[in-house]
């Protein structure tokens, strides 16, 4: 399998997480930022067993058919969630033709899927290399948007208390960063197996900090109008204006589209590799089949998948299964000794 380096891995995973943040809907407060940070920490804890086994050289692709099938299903559902988020947010960021009903939605999904098929056919290495450049450029664009948006910030918004409580926000944060099938697969592709645990930990911390920072920025900018804001992060970008008569929110559309493509691509490449293990005969159309399934899942179950507890359950499923497997294996080894 192709090898990727640690910075490429972190860029690849963070792009997907930032895309989910762009599509974040509903009210956000300072507590949401804390919840997302703690959610990342919780994910790190449940992923530790998987990361320990990766350190020993075992990868998801060598972990038995059942776990591979489970990871494949989860990747498809995660992809479906991403498509669903894309459809729900694309009206706000203005993607041409998206508003023209089902056909517009399918056109947007089809175009993204077509690009994803091409990218995933180029392999993990090419995907990871381009993701690093896209992440760097995207970061630069986002920084520009944030700098100009900060002129409209309202510090009092930080004092608004969360009605639903911290646990609901942790659940929300836990579910938002749910691409753990891809995380475990991609982490297994990193060059140095000895540093995988460290790389994984760095990623979770980076995600926690980044999520909190993005949400806090959205709170500061949209604080006053949070009640009427459907997508706070996207709205924060729209409020960014360098000059009184000039807007730059189309810059956000570019970052949004690019991150959407890479977020879906990560899931498509994961599904492609797992399909290769499960059905080796299916040679040509693995990623096409996976993307079609993702579109279908997103279209039919999108609303359900966007529920925080469903997203959190999907995120937790694979690491828990891997942990249980690890415990059973240890017991088997100790009983045989």
């Amino acid at each position, binding site marked *: 399998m192709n*090898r990727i*380096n640690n*910075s*490429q891995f972190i860029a690849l995973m963070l792009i997907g997480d930032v895309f989910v943040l762009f599509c974040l809907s509903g009210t956000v407060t300072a507590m949401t930022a804390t919840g997302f940070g703690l959610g990342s920490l919780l994910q790190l804890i449940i992923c530790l067993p998987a990361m320990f086994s990766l350190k020993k050289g075992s990868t998801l692709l060598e972990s038995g058919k059942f776990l591979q099938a489970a990871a494949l299903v989860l990747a498809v559902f995660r992809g479906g969630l991403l498509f669903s988020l894309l459809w729900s947010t694309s009206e706000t960021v*203005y*993607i*041409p*033709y998206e508003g023209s009903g089902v056909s517009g939605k399918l056109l*947007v999904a089809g*175009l*993204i899927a077509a*690009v994803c098929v*091409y*990218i995933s056919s*180029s*392999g993990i*290495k*090419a*995907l990871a*290399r*381009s993701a*690093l*450049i*896209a992440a760097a450029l995207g970061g630069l664009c986002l920084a520009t948007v944030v700098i100009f948006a900060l002129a409209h910030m309202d510090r009092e918004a930080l004092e608004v208390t969360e009605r639903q409580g911290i646990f609901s926000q942790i659940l929300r944060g836990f579910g938002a960063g749910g691409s753990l099938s891809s995380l475990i697969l991609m982490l297994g592709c990193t*060059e140095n197996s000895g540093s995988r645990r460290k790389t994984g930990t760095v990623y979770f911390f980076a995600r926690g900090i980044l999520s909190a920072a993005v949400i806090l920025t959205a709170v500061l900018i949209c604080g006053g109008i949070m009640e009427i804001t459907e997508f706070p992060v996207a709205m924060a970008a729209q409020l960014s204006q360098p*000059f009184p*008569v*000039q*807007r*730059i*929110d*189309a810059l956000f*559309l*570019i970052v949004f*589209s*690019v991150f959407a*493509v*890479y977020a879906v691509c990560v899931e498509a490449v994961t599904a492609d590799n797992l399909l290769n293990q499960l059905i080796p005969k299916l040679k040509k159309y693995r990623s096409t089949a996976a993307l079609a399934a993702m579109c279908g899942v997103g279209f039919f179950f999108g609303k359900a998948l966007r529920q925080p507890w469903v997203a959190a359950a999907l995120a937790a499923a694979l690491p828990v299964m891997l942990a249980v497997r690890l415990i059973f294996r240890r017991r088997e080894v100790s009983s045989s000794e």
Partner: protein
Amino acid sequence: MTRDEDKKVIRSGLNESLCYIKSVTGSSSDVLINEFTTAGISCALLCCDGMVSSQAVAETLMPALTGIPEVKNPAELFRCIREHMLLSTDMAESDDYGDMLRRLHSGFAILLAEGMAKALAFGVQGYASRSVQEPSGEGNILGSHEGFTEVVRTNMSMLRRRLKTSELVMKLSTVGSKSMTDICLCYMKDRVPEKLLKRIESSLGEINLESVLSTGYVRPFVERRSFEFFSSTGLTERPDVLCSKLVEGRVAILVDGVPYGIIIPRLFCESFHTLDDYAYKPYYSIFMRWIRYGAFIIAILLPAVYTAIAMYHPELLNSTLLLLLVQEEENAPLSIITEAVLVLLMYEVIREAGIRLPKPVGGAVSIISGLIIGDAAVKSGLVSTPLLTMTALSALGGLVVPDLAPQITVLRFGFLVAGGMLGLFGISLLACAVLTNICATEDYGFPFTAPLSPFFREGMGDTVFRLGFRKMQNRGFTVEEYHEQNK
């Protein structure tokens, strides 16, 4: 000549040999046969008209050959010539007709003698060729003004003059079963990665073409087979540029008849480097390098972004610009995308005409295109002035990076269509695909996008910036640093 005939040994009978050569060459008018007797033995001197230096033949070869005192047998004659006469610095013996004819057609003079089943070949090449001139496409201000010529040996000498070290190796071989083109593999034996050299040699061994008439015949064999939009091998017509690449551990291929050298591997960022970058002060070089990066982006994206903004995202423009645009576009009879495609097509046609037409007519093309078509199109309202300005800027941007001209031309159209149909969303999608294609480009394990991705901090000193030579001299950079397996 078939492969069997190619290996046929030379006959000892002179007349028999000459008859055979005449039959094989079809009594071609340029094959000259001069029969004479020297040292009491009948001989023949064969040469190709126009390929040999007639002065060397008339003043050096013929007087020496005809003045040999009598010998016992033809073997004695050949031994005498080989051991006692220095008639040319490049002297060889051929045992078969194939090798003999190859040398004859390469400008050697061939000596055949009655009773001798061998031929002596004297390197007296002297064909007409273009002299060393200034490169036409890679101009610079402060560096050398010498460019490669069509003669591979002249090009080799230009490299040797710049790298007077025994580490520089130049290996000549022949490709093309009919053209028998000389190609020269150049490398620094202490710098080149051994695996890279072996793999390039084996790639060259796969060439089974009848003729090799330009570098374009060789490049597909040393590049990966999958579709790569950007080429992972570079071309240069400057010996100084080629030398700098050889010092960095790369391999170069010179093809006889072509004033360009192929560089393997090439990196994406190198398309934005010029030799002048190393002649000016670093601050100016860095500034110019960033101008080139910007020009590349403008060349590809400007018409597309203009179209996308005008059609789908007018909120990006301030009110003054928006009003100007509306005023101009409402008079134009065509949609912005149609207008943009037509203007770009027109530009490409004019450019192609300028390249293909004889130089004296080139000026006329500029007048017709610039003054008549451009002016008339704007005045008649067929094309709006802002669009024409954008297209002109984009075309100018493309000229700043001539290495990437083919890719810029096609991508400009691709992005224009994407932007015209789907706005910035379409441009973003296509940009993702193109970026991945660039990142997937990799030959012999050297990523095309290095040192950006995979990221090499040390490589930034001559990519994003340009460090001074005092800092760079201690680095001892070779391209092997970028090989993924060597990290």
